[in-house]
Every structure is written in C-alpha cells, then in structure tokens.
C-alpha cells in the first residue's frame, strides 16, 4: 500500500515535470544523468541545462532531480491506453530472409530486461509435414484486430489501442492467465517469479505501460511492438537488430513499411510477394504479415549453424516428433 502511494507520488512528480515544459527529455548536466524537476526547495543557484531540441536553459539547482529513466519518455497511463493518434501499425516478416540469426530475440530481451529463458519473440522451426520444406519463422505478438486475449480479460489489463497495438498493464493485471489460454498463437508469457538482475535505474523509474520494463511478478507479458521506441520515432529493437532485414515495420495508414535499410509500399510488397497472415482462418485479423519463404537468401540448414547445444535441443525436440 505504502509502496503504491510512493509510486503515485512519483507519478504526479513526473507529470509536474512534463508541465514544466521545455526541459523534457534527456538533459545532461556536468556529465551525470540529471534532469530538471519541479521541486519546491529553491537554492538560488542557477544551473544551465540543455533541452531535447538543443536549446540551453537556466534553472534553479534545487529543481534538479536525479533521473535515471531519462531515456524513456513517460506517457501517462490514459495516453498509453489510447495509443498514438492516427496511426495503425503493421509488421511484415520476410521469411525468405530469415536464417535464425536470433539477434531479434536477444535485442528484445535486452530492451525489456528479460532473462535469457524468457522470449517475447521466438524463432520457430516450421515444417508442416515431412514432404514440405522446413523454414524459420520468427513469431512476435500478432497485435490482432480481433484479439481473443483482450476480449476475455476480466479487468481490461490487456487492451487494444487505436493505433493497433495490444498492450498489457502490469499494474492492473490480476494474473488469471485467461488471456494466455485465449491466445491461439502462444504469444504470451507469464512472470512466474520475480524478475531478476534488473538494473537499479529501471526498477526505480515510474511504471509505464509502454515500456514494458521491469516486468511484474504474477502478471502476463508479451511482445509490445516497442511503443516507447515508436513514440521517439524509432523502430522497434527487433527490426533494427536483425542483420538480414527480415522485419519491416510501418504504418498501414501511410502504406509504408521499413526495415531500416529499405522503405517499401506496404500494399505493393504484400501484392508482389503474396503476403499472408498466419492462421487467417481463426478470424483474429493479425497485424503481422508474412512473406512466404521462397527464393531464400540462405539455405535452411544455415540457421542451425552456430546455435548453442541448448538451443538446438529445442528444435530437435520438435523435429523428432
């Protein structure tokens, strides 16, 4: 209870800070991560700080407050539930380029401070039957337009935003796991124990639905399309981390997707390469499209090279069956 009160205090503190205006973002003062904060104890001593748009400003040193989470822009819970206006995000995964490099997996884990055994993105070995060709299939949350998971949530802890993203509020989730049984794609993972090895600064920053870190014990987590990155105008980490340009991310309203190197028309890409959505027959209307694994850049076997024995055994378990 006390902890919650503290947190809400922190939140109002942050809100005041946003009202403070020009000084939002990462200000750098005397080499340490410090930013302005609307405190009451004025010292009279003025300090120069730099705003996000590069202007210098002078504030009272008493208003300075140590801020370790400057890198994540704080969005209020209400805003985070609405989403980014006039946007509709979409992802295209080009299966012909994937060689199971697994950089997306580790980038996602770093970004969200997940342990190595918790994967929000999985790269799966797919082979429908013995007579069809095996291929690698990265799987994120599909951010469905008819999400079965948000439908069943009893408290609205997981919700669909106007910009298409399906998020989880880890401070509201009661851990009933109904969404996990409802999701046909096994996209959701549960925090069975307390998250470990989380840096102090992440633990101390106020919770944001958009950052997804740190995860909360007893609640559900999943791929969130990195809305905090999008807000900063950046691509989700899996997209930029992929060395083979497998992931394209974009906005269906703008009809544009990009993998960082190439920027393409979404509709043309889907038309030219016969894009499809996984298990369309379920009626979930995913926001993630796949391009079929034809004319591949890498032979399938190259995906098994360089894998740890541990990782290999995961795939062997599957192929043996």
């Amino acid at each position, binding site marked *: 209870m006390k902890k919650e009160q503290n947190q809400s205090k922190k939140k109002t503190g942050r809100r005041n800070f946003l009202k403070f205006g020009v000084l939002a973002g990462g200000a750098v003062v005397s080499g340490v991560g410090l930013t302005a904060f609307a405190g009451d104890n004025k010292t009279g001593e003025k300090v120069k700080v730099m705003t996000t748009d590069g202007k210098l400003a002078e504030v009272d040193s008493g208003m300075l407050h140590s801020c370790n989470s400057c890198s994540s822009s704080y969005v209020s819970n209400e805003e985070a539930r609405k989403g980014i206006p006039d946007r509709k995000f979409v992802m295209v995964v080009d299966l012909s380029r994937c060689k199971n490099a697994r950089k997306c997996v580790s980038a996602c884990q770093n970004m969200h401070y997940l342990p190595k055994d918790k994967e929000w993105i999985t790269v799966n070995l797919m082979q429908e039957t013995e007579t069809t060709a095996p291929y690698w299939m990265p799987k994120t949350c599909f951010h469905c337009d008819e999400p079965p998971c948000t439908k069943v949530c009893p408290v609205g802890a997981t919700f669909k935003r106007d910009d298409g993203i399906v998020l989880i509020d880890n401070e509201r989730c009661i851990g009933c796991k109904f969404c996990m049984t409802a999701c046909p794609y096994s996209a959701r993972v549960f925090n069975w*124990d307390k998250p470990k090895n989380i840096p102090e600064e992440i633990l101390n920053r106020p919770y944001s639905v958009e950052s997804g870190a740190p995860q909360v014990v007893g609640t559900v987590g999943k791929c969130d399309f990195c809305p905090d990155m999008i807000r900063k105008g950046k691509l989700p980490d899996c997209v930029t981390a992929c060395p083979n340009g497998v992931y394209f991310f974009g906005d269906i309203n703008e009809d544009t997707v990009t993998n960082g190197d190439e920027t393409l028309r979404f509709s043309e890409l889907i038309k030219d390469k016969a894009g499809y959505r996984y298990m369309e027959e379920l009626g979930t209307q995913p926001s993630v499209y796949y391009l079929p694994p034809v004319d591949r850049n890498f032979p399938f076997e190259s995906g098994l090279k360089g894998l740890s024995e541990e990782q290999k055994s995961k795939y062997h*378990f599957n192929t043996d069956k």
Partner: protein
Amino acid sequence: MKIENKTKEILKEFSPQIENFNRRFKILSAILIVIMLFALYAFYMQEKEGHIVTGMRDNVVWGLYIANFVFFIGISYAGALISGILHLLKVEWRKPIIRVAEFITVISTVIGPLFILLCMGRLDRIYNLVLYGRIQSPIIWDVIAITTYIIGSFLFLYLAMIRDLAILRDSPDLKIGKFRRWSYKFLAIGYNGTAKQDKLLEDSITIMSAIIIPIAVIVHSVLAWIFGMTLRPGWHSTIFAPYFVIAAVFSGTGVLIVALWAYRRYFHLEKYITKKHFDYLGMLLLILAAIYGYFTFSEYLTDWYTSETWNARVLEKLFNFNEYGWWFLFAAIIGILLPMIVIGIPKLRTINSVTAVSFIAVIALWVKRYLIIVPTLETPLFPIQDNRIEWIKYSATWVEWALTLGGVATFIFSFMLLSKYVPIIPVSLVSKPPEKTESLNVEEKVETV
C-alpha cells in the same frame, strides 16, 4: 413454541450428536487441522516465491487448481439440484437426506472458488475485478454467477433449517453452551410455528428451491464457457455447457451417496437412511451416468471421426497409453460403465457396493476435469518448441497437492462442524406426517420406477 412429543423423542435421539465432542471427533479434527495448516504453509510459499513453486508454466497455465475448482462447484449440485428438485416434487424419502445434500452444496460452493483465487498470480489485486470489471469477460460472468450461487445456496440451507433452529432454541434440556443457545435464538428469527409463519416459510423454501435450480445450471454453464470460449482443441465445443452440467449433477449425486454412507455409519442412522435411499439415489446415478456417458461418447466421437489436426493432437495424447491413456480409460469408460453395471444388476446392488461405485465415479470425474484442462493446454495450436520438460509436460508440485488436500480437509472439517451445530437429519421434517400431493402420489410413482 410448543414441541410435539414425537419431535422431542427424535431430538433426544440426536442430542448426543450435537452435545458431545467424543475422542473420535477430536482425533479426526486434529488430523484435518494439521493438513489445513500445511496447506496454509504451501499458500504462504506460493505467495512469497511466486507461482514458480507450482508446476504450471507458460503452456499449462492452469492445472490442479482449476480442476479442483470445477470439481467442487460440480459436487455442489448435490444440494442445489437434487434437493431442489426433490423438494419441488414433494418426494417423501428426501426428508432425511436433504440436509446432507445442502451441506455439501454450501461447503463446496465456498471451497471451489478458493481454488480460483489460488490460481491468480496477483491475489493482492483482486479488487480490480470490482474497479475495472468488464462484462465482456466470461470470468466476470463467473464472478457474478458464483456470488449469486453462494448467496442462494446459503439462503436455501438456512430457510430449510429455521424450523430445526427453533426446536433447538425451545429445548432447554440440551446440554449446550450459552453462546450456542443464544445463536439458535438469533438464527431462528422468532419462528414459533404459527400457521402464518409456517406458510410463509414453506412458500419461501419452495420459491428458493425453484430459484436455485436455474442458478446452479447457469453457474456450471458459465464455467464451461470459460473453456468453450477459447480457440483451443478439446475446449472449443458447443456441447460443453450441458456436458459440464450433467457431469456436475453426476458427481454431486456420487458425493451425496458417499456422505450419506459415512453419516449412516458414523452416527448410526440406519433407521433414517435406509437401503431405499441408496437404491433410489443409485438409480439416479445410473441415469446420470448414462446421460454423461452419452455426452462423452458424442464429444470424442465427433472429434475423432474428423480428426482435424488440432483435435487429433489432443486425442493422440488422450488415447496414448504412454501419455493419458490409462487415465482416460478410467475416467471416461470405467468411471461411467462400472456404476451402471453394479447399480443396474439388482444382485450386485447393496449399500456398500453403491457407495463404492459412487466413490469411484467421483474420483473418475475429478480425473476427467484434469484431462479436460491439462492435455489441451499441453497442445497449443502453435506447437511447443522447447526443451524444458516442465514447459512441455505439466506435473503438479507439492504446493499444489498440499493445497488440494487442504481443500478436501476443509470440506470434511466444515462438514463435521456443521453437523455438530444442527442435527444432520432435519428433525422437524422427519417428525412431520407425509405431505399430501394432489391427485397423484409422487412417492408411490417414484417407487414403481
């Protein structure tokens, strides 16, 4: 209130039951309390360490707890449906057994939902169900239905007890404490057996028994829909609601027979609970087993015949003797056919044999709930790609077993306490002359069946 001599005699017969706490009672209580304390310790560990101490992992997110939940809500049908229907039909032989049935209902409707709470990752946020409850979610349907059910079944039991409470209040010979006497007076809410009061009470009981039946049906249907509303093989079935309802009445009748047997032995109630009760309830069990068997056959036949990939994957697990084959054989075939054979053949039908097959049926139904939940969750639509055995195959840990045993212990202990408070045989009912039913005597009608 003036108590008739016949009532007095019967009460005298039962007074040792509610006056004395003998050694057997104390030893059994001590054992049950130890089990309950151990369960509390397991609960403490789970809350302290997180659900990592359970056998549940990302694929099998529901396990023993949800199986127990469905099971306990199922056996609560004993009082709600059986006692409700028998009351409405004015069946004479119901009189000595309805209190046992209603005790089962009230206790299991309280214990069942406790297992849902155990399955929640954040029990500390349960108030969110009120703050942010979404009517679109089947869990909220469940919360509403079960709350109504708990209140309804308490009311039903209480109304049926008022006459006995008044008798206990007006029996000064009883050797009981001051507080207990006061509680009888308080709970009897001034009932004095006047004609007006009697009619009012009788009408209320009749209305309540009519209300409790649809509520019970709704509760188990909603529960089935929690599974039926998901895109999962083995769950996403249109017959799940009636299937669950029938399974519930089946298990409720089974538990009622076992409880009657135990009381008959423990309190020497041979005079009141007779072979007739076991015969009639046995027949009911037989009919229910047949309907339940029909549903089971229909469900698995349609899944197996088309063998759509996803359904086939689940069935492969259920029919494979290296996986769940033996359990399936026990739960879906032996647990149904054995009661039908033993009860169906008059030579085999004795009080002990009916009780034994009822017990087997109840265990089989518990296993069936487990088989509904676990194999389906082990077979997600997107095949599991993992090498961690606990992620692939569920096996419950000591924490889950301890809490399961704790639930059973609480069930038995609550029973013992309640039957110390009021006579397990409704004194006011059995001392009354048979009710007159219009034009046709249902009692005789039932006997000729």
